[in-house]
């Protein structure tokens, strides 16, 4: 009985480990699986360098990256993995959608990094530049 319990725990441990590292591995190998262009591969590499393991997991499993506001408690910016509006959530409720894009066309992964850098280092300017669409409930 003890032996079986030990085996189950070991297996569970491996499953948890596999789940924890799979997003990083996916980000690492997806350029090859999906036949991405060299530009997209380089952008994916930059994205990997900029995100923590937890942020990678969120981006892959949920399709967006949540960036806490540096200035407003309970505010979060939800940046989509592919092109689209950035949602602003206050206390978990969507209050605004933002549209901001680079003047030069960039791979999707670079656009995610762009939003992250601008929000974390220069939120005020980011908000000034973005077109805002208020969410009315």
């Amino acid at each position, binding site marked *: 009985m003890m032996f079986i319990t030990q085996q189950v725990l070991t297996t569970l441990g491996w499953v948890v480990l596999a789940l924890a590292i799979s997003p990083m591995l996916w980000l690492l190998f997806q350029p090859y699986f999906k036949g991405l262009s060299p530009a*997209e591969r*380089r*952008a994916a590499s*930059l994205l990997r360098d900029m995100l923590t393991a937890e942020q990678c997991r969120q981006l892959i499993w949920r399709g967006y990256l949540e960036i806490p506001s540096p200035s407003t408690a309970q505010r979060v910016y939800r940046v989509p993995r592919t092109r689209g509006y950035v949602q602003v959530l206050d206390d978990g409720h969507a209050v605004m959608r933002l549209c901001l*894009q680079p*003047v030069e*066309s*960039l791979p999707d992964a670079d656009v995610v990094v762009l939003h*992250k850098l*601008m929000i974390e280092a220069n939120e005020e300017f980011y908000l000034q530049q973005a077109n805002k669409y208020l969410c009315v409930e």
Partner: protein
Amino acid sequence: MLRVMSRRGDDRVNWDQQKVLAGDPEATAAVREAERIFAQERAKGATAFRVEPGKPIQRIETFDETAEQIVLVPRVVGG
């Protein structure tokens, strides 16, 4: 390292700060090239960020050769 976002992904210029301090001509040339690209992209409206592990991301106005990594993003506009 300087990383410049573009339609090609990101272009990189690497240099070794220790070699720059030691006067290595190749490393010094790399820094000068990075500085030139930095100025050129900033003139076009790009924003520069200093990114270092474990530290908050910092917006910078001038080139800093001691930065571990500088990322330049192109000018942005509301969509």
